[in-house]
């Protein structure tokens, strides 16, 4: 017997819950990135369009996606074993995501082919991904137990690992339940959804976030490097050579110097207030 999950609760409810989860994740991502966004230079998008162009930006995106995200060429090059485990967790997770999406697209009405059937291609990939992911998680947990430095700095990531592990295990349990007469199939499914939700909602606040953040930052860095190489001199991410040019401009009188009043007055809160007043008087601000 195959349990039809859409008979327990409608697919629409799951879709709505997923949409709410995505919204929460998006807000979490914006919250975490706000500090970085605030320090970005204002002319970035303008300079990127002018000096790199849309096709250049798209090319950089796919280059980063392929090299740094999918095959992780420059990631963890100091340790082969860590790199393999990192790839196992990454691709295992992608396999599971593929299975979920496959199921959602082709079997929304809840009718599943028999377990061994090749029509169940998505589930086969998902199962392989799940096993690979569990092996990767086990290796990370072992490292966590064995290396004190790792333990000290990544306490919060236990939640991420725990949710990931439980979501995977309950996923396997759900799949077994679906193809048996397990009376707890619906509860397995509900628990599985709960852990998936918890995993994603906490993602911006756990180590899971690096999966999204690092590719974004590497892409930003590639854009920055390209802008500097193209001589985008209105862009603040200067090479040190351009800093030397700035210093030379000040020496030659081409650029007026800005005296560091914040140093003269000291950095006490009173000193800072005095520095602000002095700055306004002398140069009209920075």
């Amino acid at each position, binding site marked *: 017997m195959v349990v039809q999950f859409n008979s327990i609760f409608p697919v629409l409810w799951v879709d709505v819950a997923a949409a709410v989860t995505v919204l929460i994740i998006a807000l979490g991502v914006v919250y975490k990135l706000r500090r970085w966004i605030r320090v970005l230079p204002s002319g970035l998008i303008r300079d990127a369009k002018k000096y790199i162009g849309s096709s250049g930006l798209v090319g950089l995106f796919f280059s980063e996606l392929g090299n740094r995200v999918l095959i992780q060429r420059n990631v963890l090059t100091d340790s082969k074993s860590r790199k393999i485990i990192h790839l196992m967790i990454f691709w295992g997770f992608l396999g599971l995501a593929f299975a979920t999406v496959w199921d959602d697209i082709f079997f929304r009405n809840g009718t599943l082919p028999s377990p061994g059937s090749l029509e169940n291609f998505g589930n086969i990939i998902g199962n392989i991904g799940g096993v690979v992911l569990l092996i990767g998680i086990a290796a990370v947990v072992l490292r966590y137990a064995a290396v004190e430095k790792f333990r000290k700095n990544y306490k919060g990531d236990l939640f991420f690992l725990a949710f990931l592990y439980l979501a995977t295990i309950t996923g396997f349990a759900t799949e077994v339940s679906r193809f048996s007469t397990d009376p707890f199939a619906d509860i397995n499914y509900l628990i599985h959804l709960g852990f998936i939700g918890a995993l994603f909602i906490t993602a911006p606040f756990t180590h899971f976030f690096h999966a999204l953040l690092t590719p974004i930052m590497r892409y930003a860095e590639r854009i920055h490097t390209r802008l500097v190489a193209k001589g985008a001199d209105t862009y603040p991410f200067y090479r040190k050579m351009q800093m030397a040019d700035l210093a030379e401009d000040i020496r030659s009188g081409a650029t007026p110097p*800005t005296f560091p009043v914040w140093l003269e007055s000291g950095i006490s809160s009173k000193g800072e207030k005095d520095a602000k007043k002095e700055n306004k008087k002398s140069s009209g601000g920075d």
Partner: protein
Amino acid sequence: MIVDLAKCVGCDACSVACKIENATPSEIWWAPVVQTEVGKFPKARLSFLPTLCMHCEDPPCMKSCPVKAISKRGDGIVLINEDKCAGSRACLTACPYNAISIWEEETPLYGKGETPLDMMAKRKHRFGAAQKCTFCSHRMDMAKEKGMIPGVDRDATPACVLACPAECRIFGNIEDPNSPAAKYLKQAKADGRTVFALRPEARTKPKVAYVW
């Protein structure tokens, strides 16, 4: 820190001293001296700019770090906790002074095999993490313990400051009017010399000032 550009001869002693003191990886330099050619023959000359982390009062790197691996101490030194760093590179792109490096390639100093410096770099630093000048914070900590004065006592002064043969780097507590840095700044201003900070438009309030 005050850097007197009129005295700098571009010998790179500071860069090498920093590398040895902090065992930085082979391709990473926390305190490089940038050389540029200025003017045209026969009036061409070299201009030297010692660069390092500015330990800003309002550090954008600290604000941008998503895992809070960067912090500012009570004495104003901005430090990166390499163990906590997730290698996101947010700090790299946020720093207006290009002061932060990420250790990405393991290149030994000399051909195959590791030198003692390479081995020490592996012990002291974490591959894949961001790193930058620390104003030799370990020396500042020792200064505090032993009651030494930063910028005055040798063991309480950053390696780059000690190594400079031209004495163009001056270090000290700017809030102490008797410190070498405060006195130098005051004297430079009195002499009518140009004292400036780099990239003031970034609004980071860098704690490294340059003097011409």
